[in-house]
């Protein structure tokens, strides 16, 4: 087990380095000359040269990358063009709201597991068909379209929740401490969560169906194990394993969905921050935000992988 963790950590480092290389490469490809952008009115060659030297643009590529990496190591993600503030600080400010959204979306998403199991056990019945069809339909709805709909229906038409914005207090970033906080949380979280639930429940059902038909489940029945135990013990563990991996990878989609959801609901957070930066062509913020999110994603996947290894003994030996 320890060996497995060490190997995964090693892999993680390699991947993260690769991520920085790729990000740097993308940034390097920005068309246009940043020196000119910063120079402003005075575009004299001398001034441009000074600016270039200041930005380190006159050094060879690998040195620039080295500088980039070094700054990253110190947590320095650059400074926003637009707001002249350190990106790191902006991220830190925007983080709590996004974390809250993500956590609740995941909690809602986990409902997909019992739904999928239930559906699988009731295969061929009305409920199964209904649930599976709804899951497929909902899964296909682009998240921003669903968000708009929720906004219109529950916000505008029914007036149950505010249409946009964020605010209120929360405990440990996540738990709403007052109605304001909760009211701003519900629609975005449900939007994100429902699409994920649809996906997870569909996958869980498929996995469970396969497990229920497996030889080892048949062996359990042949031993005289009560059906309840066959399902809850013998099947469930096996059925959840692939879904764990899927859910982990799906976090990436969740992050993308978070941007769209925050934008639709004008909900302050990492996603909205990135969106505003994109509109303003504020590259440091975009790059910094994406890089940060990627690191989080990679580490989250590591955690999922370790959890996976705890549940499935076969993985530890790979």
């Amino acid at each position: 087990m320890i060996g497995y963790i060490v190997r995964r950590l090693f892999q993680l480092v390699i991947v993260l380095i690769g991520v920085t290389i790729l990000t740097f490469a993308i940034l390097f490809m920005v068309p246009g000359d940043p020196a000119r952008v910063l120079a402003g009115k005075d575009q004299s060659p001398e001034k441009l040269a000074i600016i270039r030297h200041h930005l380190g643009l006159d050094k060879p590529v690998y040195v620039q990358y080295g500088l980039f990496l070094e700054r990253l190591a110190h947590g320095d993600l650059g400074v926003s063009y637009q707001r002249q503030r350190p990106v790191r600080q902006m991220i830190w400010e925007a983080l709590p709201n996004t974390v809250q959204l993500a956590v609740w979306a995941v909690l809602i998403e986990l409902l997909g597991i019992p739904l999928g199991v239930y559906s699988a056990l009731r295969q061929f019945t009305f409920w199964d068909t209904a649930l599976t069809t709804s899951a497929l339909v909902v899964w296909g709805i682009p998240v921003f379209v669903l968000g708009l709909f929720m906004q219109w229906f529950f916000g505008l038409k029914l007036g149950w929740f505010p249409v946009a914005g964020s605010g209120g207090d929360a405990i440990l970033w996540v738990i709403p401490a007052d109605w304001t906080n909760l009211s701003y949380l519900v629609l975005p979280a449900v939007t994100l969560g429902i699409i994920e639930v649809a996906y997870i429940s569909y996958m869980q059902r498929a996995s469970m169906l396969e497990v229920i038909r497996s030889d080892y489940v048949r062996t359990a029945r042949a031993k005289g194990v009560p059906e309840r135990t066959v399902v809850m013990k013998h099947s469930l563990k096996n059925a959840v394993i692939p879904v764990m991996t899927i859910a982990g990878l799906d976090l990436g989609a969740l992050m993308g969905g978070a941007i769209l959801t925050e934008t639709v609901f004008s909900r302050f957070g990492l996603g909205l921050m990135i969106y505003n930066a994109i509109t303003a062509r504020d590259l440091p913020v975009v790059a910094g935000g994406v890089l940060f999110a990627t690191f989080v994603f990679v580490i989250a996947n590591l955690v999922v992988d370790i959890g996976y290894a705890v549940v499935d003994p076969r993985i530890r030996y790979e």
Partner: protein
Amino acid sequence: MTDTTSPTSFGAPQPDSPLSPTAANEVPTTRPLGLWADTWRRLRRNKLALVGLGIITVFMVIGMSQIIAHLLGVQLTPYDPNGVDYALSPKGLGAPPSATHPFGTDYLGRDVLSRTLVASRVSMLVGVIAVAIALVIGLSLGPVSGYYGGVTDAVIMRTADVFFAFPYILFVLLIMTVLGPGFVNVFIAIGLLSWAGYARLNRGSVLSVRTMEFIEAARAQGASDLRIIFRHVLPNTMAPVYVAIAMGIGGAIATEAALSFLGIGIMPPDASWGSMISNYLTYVPAGSWWMEFFPSAALVLTVFGFIAFGNGLRDATDPKLKE
């Protein structure tokens, strides 16, 4: 058809799938069907998948005809999609659906149906081209990686890992920010990022097919490595790829819509469903729902079609799934 749900209910596992009644004068025997016929048979029973296929077909037809019309400079819509007519937009809020304008008109009096049809062009192009780019890259690197193994495999797969490490939409957004908005950039961004999925998918299949005997047979006949990969290995590993393509096109269309919605995808005068959804948003509180509704419905329907069909295809080609 072994309709038993227990894999071993008839003793040793059967390599062929028994089916097909034979001529009346013989006792019917078991006979294996071709891969495609069997897939189609299973697909036919999945109603959702069939609906999906229907939607995809409609979408393809509309999209293709719009593309061709555009290339020929011909208008293939009931009205001019850019035809401004203030008379058709009382109070600047457009006119609701009517007999003459089934989808209504927008705030400039333009026919929403025509605009929706024309916008399908973008979705179609994005879906197909972006996925094609990803396929070309992925289907070259994947089999090579799986076939040669060793260092080549390690390098390619680590690179794929790096691409996978980025949350998809964020990565696309980053590239779009760097490259700037526009038609071509969208293809590049989406296509460039999706290759890793196809490569990995393919590599897995190639790895398992590589050791099968008929590859040895080909090599014994003197076939070169490249030939072996692309002529012999690849065709046998394509089933999951087709599924991925179907889902991929759906995903690409949704991604482009999201990009355009955020304002960094397609730029005017080109219109995509995403940009329409974004533009017409402000008119909804005032009561003009149709401008927002129809492009949204078109988008949702199309993406659903690809996903439903993709899932159906996956179920139909899954050897483990018994009916």
